[in-house]
């Protein structure tokens, strides 16, 4: 059976240019060999810190960026090699929703125009488009009479709903959600998360959910891929990643999250990583995490560990010395 989405060996390298001749003096390996697979109706989260390549990966998936190398197979067809015309047709099935509810909606268009735009672009508006817009607004919990207003008249949470209605206009099968709730207040964030889950159940959508917020990821995901400096260091089911993480980076990331419960706060074991994420223009040799890793040995500097299941825990991790910790976080 073909997966809804299959990504193989995805790379995106941005050139660094200097001087009047804009000569290339180096490159930033934002995404450096990523493999992913996603089934219909499933949520796969990409998590990691800023600069790990998660948003770049998301943009590559909808081909807002051209990959340097690699394949993106959507329902078996390679998006990277499709012609513009074929791509346009396929793209209806893959939509993206952005992080910033203030920057991602045109201030000069009404809600009606914003949500109708994808339909117009695909030449589908004439055919009952106005009804479709009304239906979409109701689907995301906005009132149809809001459609004559402009984006600035809405709160952050409502704007994210407008962005969601726009993303759903063409009946996509895959939605790339790039930090969809990061800009929202906690009380409103929960509304949008519940809505995303409800829509997935009703419409059978698959989500690629990009986020740095692991509490949200744990709540919404079926599977999780942890990224560090352009590659995936560990991938598995939600339970694999949150209860049996074997990569030291995943473990450190989980233990760094403040727990909203003051009981026992002084007894918690914390892994505090030293230092910062190295520059992706000059990544460490071998394992990229080794400069911050407490387990690093000589071999880590020489050989990049492949993403495999070395110790038979049922999910792969890119570490020479993977280990299931005694206790990490909750179930």
């Amino acid at each position, binding site marked *: 059976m073909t997966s809804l989405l299959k990504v193989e060996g995805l790379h995106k390298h941005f050139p660094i240019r200097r001087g009047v001749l804009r000569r290339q003096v180096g490159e930033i390996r934002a995404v450096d060999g990523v493999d992913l697979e996603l089934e219909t109706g499933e949520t796969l989260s990409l998590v990691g810190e800023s600069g790990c390549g998660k948003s770049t990966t998301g943009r590559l998936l909808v081909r807002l960026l051209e990959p340097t190398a690699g394949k993106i197979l959507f329902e078996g067809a390679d998006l990277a090699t499709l012609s513009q015309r074929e791509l346009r047709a396929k793209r209806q099935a893959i939509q993206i929703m952005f992080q910033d509810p203030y920057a991602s909606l045109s201030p000069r268009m009404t809600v009606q125009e914003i949500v109708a735009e994808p339909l117009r672009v695909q030449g589908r508006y004439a055919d009952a488009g106005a009804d479709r817009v009304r239906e979409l607004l109701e689907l995301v919990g906005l009132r149809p009479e809001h459609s004559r207003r402009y984006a600035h008249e809405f709160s952050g949470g409502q704007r994210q709903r407008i962005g969601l209605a726009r993303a759903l206009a063409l009946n996509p099968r895959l939605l790339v959600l790039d930090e969809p709730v990061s800009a929202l207040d906690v009380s409103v964030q929960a509304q949008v998360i519940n809505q995303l889950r409800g829509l997935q159940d009703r419409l059978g959508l698959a989500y690629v959910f990009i986020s740095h917020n692991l509490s*949200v990821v744990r709540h919404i995901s079926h599977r999780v891929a942890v990224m560090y400096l352009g590659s995936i260091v560990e991938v598995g089911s939600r339970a694999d990643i949150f209860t049996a993480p074997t990569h030291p980076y995943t473990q450190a990331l989980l233990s760094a*999250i403040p727990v909203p419960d003051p009981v026992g706060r002084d007894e918690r074991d914390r892994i505090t990583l030293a230092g910062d994420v190295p520059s992706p223009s000059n990544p460490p040799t071998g394992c990229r995490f080794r400069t911050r890793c407490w387990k690093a040995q000589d071999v880590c500097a020489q050989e990049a560990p492949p993403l495999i299941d070395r110790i038979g825990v049922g999910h792969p991790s890119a570490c020479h010395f993977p280990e299931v910790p005694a206790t990490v976080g909750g179930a």
Partner: protein
Amino acid sequence: MTAEQIPGAAAASVPGAASAPGAAAASVPGAAPAAAQRVGEAPLLRIDGLSVDFHTDDGVVHAVTDVSLEVVAGEIVAIVGESGSGKTVTAMSVLRLLPKAAEVSADAIAFRGTDLRTLSGSELRKVRGGPVGMIFQDPMTALNPVMTIGAQVAEAVVLHQARSDKKAAWQRAVELLRLVGVPDPAERVKQYPHEFSGGMRQRAMIAMAIANDPDLIIADEPTTALDVTIQAQVLALLKKAQAETGAATILITHDLGIVAELADRVVVMYAGRVVETAGVGELFATPRHPYTKGLLASLPRMDVDVDQLDPIPGNPPNMADPPAGCAFHPRCPLARDKCLTDRPPLLAIGAGRTSACHFSEELA
């Protein structure tokens, strides 16, 4: 006002309840036994009846209304709330760091017994960065891009010395940066802010804040701009700096996880007012305001499994046109007729706790 009525008012952590003068006098003393160990100790900082208005094109925005709070020596008080709740404006008004358009009124903003509002500009500058250190959210805009890190930290030292000794100040800058965990500080003092990562810049900010052995540190969302592993480093550092200097800390944050990790006492703000105060343990165990309760329920957690999050319905109020009665009533599951018309005063609801809800008893 209220504080004078209660000797050693540090006990009632929020002396205020100022919105209902009559009720306050009757109820706040009830809170006294809770912090018996603090009775008699004058608060380090006392804000009483603080209101801040902004005049905008949309009319007057009451960013902060009638906020009273106290901080005693050595404690960490978290002010928590969502965007627009007035938490930052409250803290900034202490050191007069608000834009000119802000109209500030208060019964008292007293630091170590001195009303800061009576100080001249130059006197206040001696307080800023001296006995009161500040840490801002965005270390890139808070640091001067054309001065080296060392020069900025040394400046913070020199400004508060009686006799300026630049060489000693530079040495002290190196020492401070070492203290906050900047690697190779003797070299890195010569670098500019853009050569520092976000986490390192925030460390430099903390170095400046603790440079003159402050009694109070005001930290405004100190880790919001940072990645989670860097946030963990900076929080650990803040904890260490606080423990070593013994400075009281006002921690402004929207992150309940950070509150639970660091705070001793919590002040919850909504729509420019304090709606609940409590010790950190009590607040998380038994929130006594429906807003606090709603916030906790809407939080996806690492340690608890829920099928559906339980969000607070609706949106935070438009501060240019806040709801009548209790500002939270349009989103509140407990709201009744009374809430639409009568604003609930902030009342003591037991030992060291206050809540501004007509029905806080129902949450007990």
